[in-house]
């Protein structure tokens, strides 16, 4: 077919943490592996630079990949944006992708940068609703790293879901100001458990510390960014999984077609980029699952949608019945 006569597509990705972080960086690597699987190694090659916390190192890597002739260079970290806006104009024939954001620098006259993001509040909202139905103590806790970006969206969405279902529930939120301190995440979870929380969730790579405390205490856990069921088979209810292939595939199609458009893609429940994966080992009450699926459908149908106001508050917008 067409793809076979084509030259091999070469993709490079730069990630801030390690590719095995069970969270942000791992999700993009997993997506690229899946694409490679699908398209075949002979057609699709990808390389990565991980642990690029240092932004200037990431910039060097991006530039280097672009000059080495990679067809698509992915900057998987919102902190890489300003470097990307410097680099992209120097390589007009190379496609770049920047996650997670919606900004493609069109306003700066840059046309070869794609953007991708996950509407993580959607899945978070669904899981929040289920959490509200599952809690007996009426206390729910959420552990976050720092209050920005994807983490903030997730936390806000989860909280909104809980309160949408049941306004009486107390939601404890704790941004521990660290992506790597497992002990602190564990202690934050302990504090919440001690406050009576029986259902918890959390985002970013330090959450395994918290999962473990939930496991010890016999609480319930909702995961995000990747499937964490193996961490605590008895406690993880469901995981919101990011499938970046839904954002990457359209970009790759553009690149293969030689039409670099610089568009923005979002993972949503609707397009399947966001999936709620239920833990098979966990016996979830059918009613709760049904309620979750119902909300999910409402979001997919656009009956429930989300907006962020000027203060950064997440608003839940319900379409009028009918």
């Amino acid at each position, binding site marked *: 077919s067409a793809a076979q006569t084509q030259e091999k597509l070469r993709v490079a990705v730069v990630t801030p943490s390690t590719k095995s972080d069970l969270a942000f960086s791992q999700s993009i690597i997993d997506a690229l592996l899946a694409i490679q699987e699908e398209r075949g190694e002979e057609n699709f090659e990808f*390389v990565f630079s991980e642990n690029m916390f240092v*932004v*200037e190192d990431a910039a*060097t890597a991006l530039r280097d990949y672009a000059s080495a002739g990679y067809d698509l260079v992915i900057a998987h970290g919102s902190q890489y944006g*300003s470097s990307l806006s410097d680099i992209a104009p120097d390589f007009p024939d190379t496609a770049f992708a920047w996650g997670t954001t919606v900004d493609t620098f069109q306003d700066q006259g840059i046309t070869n940068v794609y953007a991708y993001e996950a509407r993580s509040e959607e899945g978070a909202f669904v899981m929040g609703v289920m959490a509200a139905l599952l809690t007996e103590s009426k206390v729910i806790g959420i552990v976050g790293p720092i209050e*920005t970006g994807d983490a903030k969206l997730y936390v806000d969405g989860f909280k909104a879901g809980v309160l949408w279902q049941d306004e009486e529930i107390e939601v404890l939120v704790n941004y521990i100001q660290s992506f790597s301190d497992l002990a602190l995440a564990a202690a934050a979870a302990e504090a919440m458990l001690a406050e009576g929380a029986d259902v918890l969730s959390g985002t970013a790579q330090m959450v395994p510390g918290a999962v473990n405390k939930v496991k010890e205490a016999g609480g319930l856990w909702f995961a995000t960014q990747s499937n964490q069921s193996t961490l605590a088979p008895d406690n993880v209810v469901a995981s919101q999984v990011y499938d970046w292939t839904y954002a990457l595939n359209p970009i790759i199609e553009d690149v293969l077609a030689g039409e670099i458009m610089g568009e923005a893609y979002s993972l949503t429940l609707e397009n399947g980029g966001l999936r709620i994966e239920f833990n098979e080992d966990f016996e979830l009450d059918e009613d709760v699952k049904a309620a979750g699926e119902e909300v999910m459908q409402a979001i997919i149908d656009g009956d429930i949608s989300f907006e962020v*106001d000027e203060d950064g508050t997440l608003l839940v917008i319900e379409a009028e019945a009918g």
Partner: protein
Amino acid sequence: MQLNLPRSFHLGRTLDAFLPLFAVLLALFIGGFMILLMDANPLDAYRALWEGAFGTKNAVADTLVKATPLLLVGIGICISFRGGVVNIGGEGQMIAGGLAAVAIGLQYKESDPTTVIIACLVGSFVAGALWGGIAGVLKAYFNVNEILSTIMLNQIATFGMMYLVRSEFIDPRQKNAAAPIPETERLPRSLDLPRIGGTLDDLYDFLGLSAADANQWATTLLHNGIVIAFVLAIVVYVLLWRTTVGYRIRAVGKNPRASRYAGIKVEQYTVLSLMLSGGFAGLAGGIQLLGVRHRMNAEGGAIAFTGNAGFNGIVAALFGGLHPLGTIPASILFGALLVGGNKLQRSVQVPSALITALIGLVIVFVVASDIFVRHRSRRRVAVAVSEASAEAAEVRASP
């Protein structure tokens, strides 16, 4: 006899200069097994490391850009360690400097760029100096150990930066975004530190070297921060060994009691050492901001901005024998390892952890090899001095 000695002298010196290089090679040899373990070819890996650090003009430029904050932090470390204080606060001081630079730059983005750039750099030095000065005052007047306070102040600076960048300093464009990126506005391009590639090309032209590779440097990211750092290294050298202030800093560092007896105000010089040291780290932050980053971003914490230069600068300074001029090659070596290491990862696709471990090995081997240099140089001094004193004895005996 007189002809003989100087020759062996030089030979000895040269060998000393190569000993650390042997140590690096030995560390890389051992690291080769680690690379094998990760199913990669060590030779390819090291070729990539070399290429990444020095292989192209771009690589050399990246290495020098990486070396700049290391050198600036390092010369500050030379001051503080010579002054008897262990400044582990480079990270926090760099952040203070970066914040000051971005604040000044954004505040006066309409004004004359040259003036603003200078104001940003001065501001970053002052901010770093004040942040370092806290540890200085705590040590001099409250007896709080500076290792403790600087480690703590690093964290405090990081959290402070994260707060400011998320709230007061946040880019107005991000403020209302659904998922705001915690970063400041980018400084206007007029405030970017001037690139010096063009000048270098002119220099090549002038020297008649440009035939083959004309205008090779112009496109690199090399900015004039490296020039500032080189000049300041010399300034610090002069400060430490040619001025009364430096003399007093060193005296206090070696023996505060005797210094006090000799009439030196020990507390003031302790504070001064930490302030100067912090100032240079702050300037490293300022230069990093104007030359490389152009904005602050809270994601990834301190390291995303500093690249660990606050710590690595200590290593560079100690590699350089706590001598500002020795710190120059040391920071270039270290910058090369970091830049080349990243290239190694890209080229042979080994985990970044391998490079981290490799750099650790190199550091350990180089410091451990130091003892041989010291012993050799001591022996050499012995020979030289006994020659000198024999000569002196002859002179005395002759009349």
